């Protein structure tokens, strides 16, 4: 690797926010023709480092040099002008503009003093074709699914950037095929001499494409490693900075059999507005049921339908042997269901409210507006769960937006646990969360099930599913392909089922 020409160096970068030292004398080096994974737990400082590099945050001290020349990035425009572009986890484009415009807005080709729309559309089409995406580029962006939007974002970044491409969690909304497509593009760009910074939580993906790995922890640099010389186990150790025994503990405590369990939910022929069609599903008491499938397989849509977040158009839904007619979130909650949605930020937390208020929210709604929970009891409940779930916060009156992602997720868990649910549905509860908290959440899930609560668990990390679930329903294309339980559960079989389902 050393023979490669150095593209970017960041030396002694420090950045403080009120009360937090986000970066403490961090070094980072990127070479030409290199895919460099930037890893770390949440709060390790990855996103701050990226923000400093792209000019969104200013650093307190440190030097950045690009191709040997010192630079001081002022804002994102400046970063782009220098040849540094970024694709963010959440698609940061404008849904109201056409696909082509999203690629070219701000730097449209002009002819005779006006935007040359023909060229815009033609070039957009070509750029997307290079990424194997063939779509009508004159349609508005929001008429396409997220995966396509992500590709459009990449196309834009590629067309702008000549030197450095930063991919911040680009794969979290892509399915396997789309990931593969993205990786081949990344490799192609690497061959062309581009430096790519790759931030992700999927460790397998790191090994699939990365040359180098830089690990951060608590705002400090742990080290820079060559990917092929760093075993995965060691990497995890460096990221969490503690023994990964915990992980193995869970492995061993994996649920055994679930025979003769009482039934909690039965669905027959459910069709929902989000296109779940004629689905049959049973959930037993005290089991952890995994919904396995790729993005868009219907795993999220099923729990949304059960919870009343999406309308059920036809079919029969029974909860506790009671037929549910008009399912709304509040009805579901009163029937003993709880639901942590996939999109924690926009559908989970209420950012302005305090931790206490976020925790009691669903319980209060369950009781109704006029059966007010007194302040004393609110405090008691909040303190109880802060302790129980080990939520790291200066106090219950902190606004939830000040917490890290993992702690926010714990508050959401507390919100539902406070309602004393019989079935808890967790959609990607560990996404974007550091490894340590991940393990804690998995543990909690298993403990809850032991106490007799049913859990529906969805995760795009197969390892996690395998660890937690006693039974799995495999889904593809909004249809149930089959069920596995106990010893039958096996990564290989699930993959084959999904692959088989796809070819039919």
């Amino acid at each position, binding site marked *: 690797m050393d023979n490669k020409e150095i593209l970017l160096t960041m030396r002694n970068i420090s950045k403080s926010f009120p009360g937090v030292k986000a970066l403490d004398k961090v070094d980072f080096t990127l070479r030409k023709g290199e895919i460099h994974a930037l890893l770390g737990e949440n709060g390790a400082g990855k996103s701050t480092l990226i923000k400093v590099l792209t000019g969104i945050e200013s650093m307190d001290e440190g030097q950045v040099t690009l191709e040997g020349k010192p630079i001081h990035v002022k804002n994102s425009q400046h970063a782009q002008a220098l040849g540094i572009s970024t694709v963010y986890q959440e698609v940061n484009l404008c849904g109201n503009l056409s696909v082509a415009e999203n690629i070219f807005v701000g730097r449209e080709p002009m002819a005779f003093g006006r935007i040359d729309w023909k060229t815009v559309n033609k070039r957009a089409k070509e750029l997307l074709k290079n990424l194997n995406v063939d779509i009508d580029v004159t349609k508005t962006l929001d008429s396409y699914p997220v995966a396509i939007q992500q590709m459009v974002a990449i196309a834009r970044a590629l067309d702008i950037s000549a030197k450095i491409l930063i991919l911040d969690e680009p794969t979290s909304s892509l399915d396997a095929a789309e990931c593969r497509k993205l990786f081949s593009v990344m490799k192609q760009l690497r061959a062309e001499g581009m430096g790519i910074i790759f931030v992700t939580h999927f460790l397998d993906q790191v090994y699939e494409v990365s040359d180098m790995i830089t690990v951060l922890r608590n705002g400090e640099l742990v080290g820079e490693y060559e990917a092929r010389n760093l075993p995965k186990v060691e990497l995890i150790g460096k990221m969490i900075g503690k023994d990964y025994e915990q992980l193995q503990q869970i492995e061993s405590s994996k649920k055994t059999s679930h025979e003769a369990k009482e039934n909690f939910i039965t669905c027959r022929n459910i069709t929902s507005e989000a296109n779940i069609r004629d689905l049959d599903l049973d959930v037993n008491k005290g089991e952890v049921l995994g919904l396995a499938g790729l993005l868009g397989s219907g795993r999220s849509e099923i729990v949304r339908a059960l919870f009343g*977040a999406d309308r059920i158009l036809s079919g029969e839904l029974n909860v506790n042997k009671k037929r549910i007619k008009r399912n709304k979130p*509040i009805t579901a*909650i009163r029937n003993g269901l709880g*639901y942590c949605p996939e999109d924690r930020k926009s559908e989970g937390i209420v*950012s*302005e409210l305090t931790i206490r208020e976020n925790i009691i929210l669903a319980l209060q*709604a369950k009781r109704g507006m006029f059966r007010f929970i007194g302040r004393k009891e609110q405090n008691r409940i909040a303190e109880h769960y802060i302790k129980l779930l080990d939520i790291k916060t200066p106090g219950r009156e902190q606004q939830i937006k000040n917490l890290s992602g993992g702690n926010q997720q714990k508050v959401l868990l507390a919100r539902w646990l406070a309602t004393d649910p019989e079935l808890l549905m967790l959609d990607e509860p560990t996404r974007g969360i550091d490894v340590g908290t991940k393990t804690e959440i998995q543990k909690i899930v298993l403990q809850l099930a032991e106490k007799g609560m049913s859990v529906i668990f969805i995760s795009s990390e197969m390892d996690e599913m395998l660890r937690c679930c006693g039974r799995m329903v495999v889904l593809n294309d909004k249809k149930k392909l089959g069920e596995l339980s106990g010893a039958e559960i096996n990564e290989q079989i699930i993959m084959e089922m999904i692959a088989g389902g796809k070819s039919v």
Partner: protein
Amino acid sequence: MKKITTNQIFWPLAAFIVLLVYNAFFAKNFFKISILDGHLYGNLIDILKNFAPLALLSIGMTLVIATGGVDISVGSVVAISGAIACSIIDGRLGIFDHSFVAALILALLSGIACGLWNGFLVAKVKIQPMVATLILMTAGRGIAQLITKGKIVTINSAPMMKEYYFLGAGYFLGLPFAFFIVVAVFTIVMILVKRTAFGLFLQSLGTNPKSSRLSGIKVDRIKLVVYTISGLMASIAGILISSNIKGADCNNAGLFIELDAILSVAIGGNSLNGGRFMIPASIVGALFVQCLTTTVYALGVPPEAISLLKAIVILVLCLFQSDSFRQKVFKGTGRWRKGADAA
């Protein structure tokens, strides 16, 4: 000290006090309260009387703004409610002629109906609040004109005139009766906000409606209720205003009062994006706006210049509440030191 200045009510209260202190020095007899015809009399009492409609509107507006909405139709609802009440008192509607009770009930019902309409558009049809209430704002004065058949209704000689006039301009225990109405309404709303989960739900849905729905909050119903309350407040304000001038003037009653109400809420330091809110702060805001008007009159400045003063007040208050403004202006001291500490 920091705790006090970060309290939401601090800034509006400070502004109000500054205004009072200014008056103490520059406006003659501003604080003089005498007894006239068996009740208290003076500038301060005038403020209490005249700020009643605005205070009511700002209560409703605070709730609406907390949901992330806005109700710009309240001025028109004021006109409608005044038109209905005065037309009945004057006996020109053809039904319930001269009935005091019917006038009140129908006027209040009109406000509720207007509020329900707004709430229906916002909560059920899912139209942006500003646009939804723009409809009634545009139509409202036309509707009021329909009720009064395009005339200015005066109730000087109507049989129940005295009783009606008492509501907005009468005195009770030496204080303006309208002030007691404000106190009563304020108390009821505060009980609703603090002693039930209504306040929490409002803040929650104003911050994040999606999360709120998934937490089991009946988002649509709360919105409907909030707009209805706003409509009801506007109709009470309409009664007070028309009672005070002994008549309904569809073109001018409550003109621009929606702006004053929003201004009061903003001066109260409530975020206009919804979420956190504080009704007492809005009331102080309304008090401030009214006090400003009274001050201008007391100083003998041409009343037209009030809008100029309001503009300056809006700018100063908003700028001081704006974090980025404080940072930019005071960065010479605050930021510098922080940087030095870090190094």
